[in-house]
């Protein structure tokens, strides 16, 4: 056995809403140094901005705080540090909530660090005056078209502030919009003393983060050869055993379900991948074509060889904006002629809405007959008429009231439309806001992050 230092980092939350069993079992069922948790997706920040507008104390992932209550005594006992991008648009509010939990549990001597500075919504006018353009990264469109509808603007910040918080003794670190891999890279920079120019190591840490960031998606979840995965119910969430040179092993706790092999890890490497040679992050650019993997015993995969290079001079910014409303409702139509009846019903629905006085344009209408291979459209042919189809019908509009009207007119189709309709148990659908996503860039020198560590 090598006595070389190994750091154990796990991820117990692949997204906001992931199973609470993940983090709980990770801290309880085996050794661990760091528990990381990923809460933020593109639209999440916009939801959190709205929550904070309604209540200035909110705007962070409240789930994180209630989960912390479950695991904190074990974490303190075993010395496991917790890192989460759960701060949303209000890391300070999250800090206050953590303080309440700590005192409720009767714990003391814990240090909580927060990282701020990613939220630039209030600074957009001055940043634009200083030359930032925030053109849409996907299509080059000018940000002026959405400025008055912008609902959030957050910089994807890197791992350094997290490492700084740990260096100041933090047991828990909460960030706003840090990138998903940063919550893993931060502790590695702290533990191994990597410099911000050790690009190969930074890339290795980034790729560890990429492998971990979707939780059980690298331990057998969502894996093509699903029949070979044992005990899904008790699936083990992933752990990396990292070394100072950037090599690592992907594994899970002994006795847990799921599967770690070269293919389950590669499956996750492929997830949401763009150009593999230029995986851009705030701290380095990682080259996925340098990754080497091999099986290293049961449920262990060794990874090495990763090369990285200097990061770009810009950070990515995630902006969101209000883009009207959408609604989708559903009814089930049974056969015979399930498809024909469902199509007829959708037509009746739009005609009835028009009878109230406003016609929804064809281009804003949505009809999907689920059960006719819609997910494999044009790929898997429907061989026989289906015995039943799920009609998903709805529309997009700037007019919320118009969509409410459409939502109200779905149930009446059961008694005043073609025979065979059922399954309205979900109730009347309501319009929801469409959150538009606007990716952009910002000069790194325009962004400053701050780290605050408090003993609670």
């Amino acid at each position, binding site marked *: 056995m090598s006595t070389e230092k190994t750091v154990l980092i796990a991820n117990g939350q692949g997204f906001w809403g992931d199973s609470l069993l993940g983090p709980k079992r990770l801290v309880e069922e085996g050794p661990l140094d760091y528990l990381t948790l990923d809460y933020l997706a593109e639209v999440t920040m916009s939801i959190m901005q709205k929550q904070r507008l309604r209540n200035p104390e909110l705007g962070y992932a409240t789930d994180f705080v209630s989960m912390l209550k479950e695991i904190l005594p074990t974490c303190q006992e075993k010395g496991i540090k917790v890192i989460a991008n759960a701060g949303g648009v209000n890391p300070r509010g999250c800090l206050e909530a953590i303080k309440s939990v700590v005192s409720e549990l009767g714990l003391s001597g814990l240090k909580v660090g927060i990282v701020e500075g990613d939220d630039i919504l209030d600074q957009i006018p001055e940043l634009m005056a200083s030359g930032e353009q925030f053109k849409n990264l996907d299509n080059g469109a000018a940000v002026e078209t959405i400025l008055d509808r912008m609902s959030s603007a957050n910089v994807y910040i890197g791992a350094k502030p997290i490492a700084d918080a740990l260096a100041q003794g933090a047991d828990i670190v909460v960030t706003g919009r840090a990138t998903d891999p940063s919550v893993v890279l931060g502790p590695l920079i702290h533990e191994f003393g990597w410099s911000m120019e050790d690009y190969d190591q930074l890339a290795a840490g980034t790729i560890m983060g990429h492998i971990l960031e979707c939780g059980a998606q690298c331990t057998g979840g969502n894996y093509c050869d699903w029949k070979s995965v044992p005990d899904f119910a008790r699936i083990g969430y992933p752990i990396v055993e990292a070394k100072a040179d950037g090599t690592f092993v992907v594994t899970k706790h002994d006795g847990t379900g799921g599967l770690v092999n070269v*293919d389950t890890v590669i499956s996750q490497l*492929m*997830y949401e991948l*763009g150009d593999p040679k230029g995986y851009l992050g705030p701290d380095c650019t990682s080259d996925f*074509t340098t990754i080497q993997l091999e099986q290293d015993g049961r449920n262990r995969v060794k990874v090495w060889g990763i090369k990285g290079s200097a990061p770009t001079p810009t950070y990515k910014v995630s902006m969101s904006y209000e883009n009207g409303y959408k609604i989708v409702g559903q009814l089930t139509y049974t056969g015979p002629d399930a498809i024909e009846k469902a199509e007829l019903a959708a037509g009746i629905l739009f005609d009835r809405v028009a009878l109230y006085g406003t016609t929804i344009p064809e281009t804003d209408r949505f009809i999907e007959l689920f059960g006719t291979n819609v997910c494999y459209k*044009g790929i898997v042919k429907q061989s026989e008429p289906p015995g039943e189809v799920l009609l*998903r019908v709805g529309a997009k509009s700037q007019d919320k009231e118009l969509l409410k009207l459409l939502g109200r007119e779905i149930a009446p189709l059961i008694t005043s439309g073609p025979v065979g309709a059922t399954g309205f148990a979900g109730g009347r659908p309501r319009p929801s806001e469409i959150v538009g996503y606007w990716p952009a860039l910002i000069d790194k020198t325009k962004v400053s992050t701050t780290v605050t560590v408090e003993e609670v």
Partner: protein
Amino acid sequence: MAIVQLMEIAIARSGDKGDGSNVGIKARTPALYQFLKANLTTEKVAEHFKEICFGPVTRYELDNIDVLNFILEDSLGGGGTETLIMDAQGKVHGLALLHMEMDVPDALLG
């Protein structure tokens, strides 16, 4: 030669990328990877997804892990946050690709 579905010779995973998706496909053996690299062209993939993907298809190669990565632009009906379709994030585009049939030399099949 035998006509097989790609799911017999590869695994895949997909996810959203803006208003498009990525589909990573990993061959089950290095020899099958060379076969896919030579035969699974962007044109074939674009044709396969013609009723799902309305933008260009780009291919990247990861020789180190026997993976081809395809980017399918405009394949989510308006993007992950705006679309109304069931598979809003292209979660099953990977399995959709694995339904493709190809004529594979017998020597490459186990």
